[in-house]
């Protein structure tokens, strides 16, 4: 028995921690719905991180651990964004875990 996230027109299966079972089920509505379920409205700043994660996964087939995410964001978007404080403000449940979930990726490798 798997859980599901209810979108307007369909349901997508997620695992017991809320990560997509089939990564190909993802679209922006999935991210918005997951965020809304956490009472978060996604801003451009959120999307910047989500899109970054999706690109990272497409390139390396791995969801980066928080330390790696922070460093890589800093390299790409600048030091004012590549730090824990900024990322935790956007994703209070843990930037790597929560943002990866919204991005439709598996739970980051390196999160025990």
């Amino acid at each position, binding site marked *: 028995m798997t859980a599901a996230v209810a979108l307007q027109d369909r349901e997508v299966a997620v695992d017991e921690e809320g990560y997509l079972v089939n990564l190909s089920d993802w679209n922006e509505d999935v991210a918005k719905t997951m965020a809304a379920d956490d009472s978060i409205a996604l801003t451009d700043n959120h999307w910047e991180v989500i899109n970054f994660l999706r690109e990272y996964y497409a*390139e*390396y*087939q*791995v969801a*980066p*651990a*928080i*330390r*790696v995410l*922070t*460093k*890589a964001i800093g390299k790409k978007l600048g030091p004012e964004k590549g730090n*824990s404080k900024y990322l935790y403000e956007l994703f209070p449940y*843990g*930037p*790597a*875990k929560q943002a990866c979930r919204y991005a439709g990726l598996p739970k980051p*490798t*390196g*999160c*025990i």
Partner: protein
Amino acid sequence: MSDTQANEGGDRKVKRFMFVNRKAPYGTIYALEALEVVLIGAAFDQDVSLVFADDGVYQLKKGQQTKGIGQKNFSPTYRALEDYDIEKLYVERESLQARGLSPDDLLVPVRVLGSAELSVLMDEQDVLLSF
């Protein structure tokens, strides 16, 4: 661990961990498991190195196509090791040559060492894990 950037106990002794990969990337779970252990372990800031020997050298081969066997091609992840500050990758020269491969055939920059040099390195490790 997870989302904390824990750095307490920074004065603790750093151990030298070497992961020895000897098996082909698919057909068994060893290669993928070793890679995951390495990525998870990277959070502990130890001195980590990877060795690829025997059929393990195929793990780093460029151009892997896994559609036919219905498995995920995880080889791009070796290119992310650098982001995890894991930069000591050694490949055994004899294994590479026996399979007609050269460093140009590999996904990531590596140091090619003869088995005698590798055995010296292995001797210097605190922990040696074989996959």
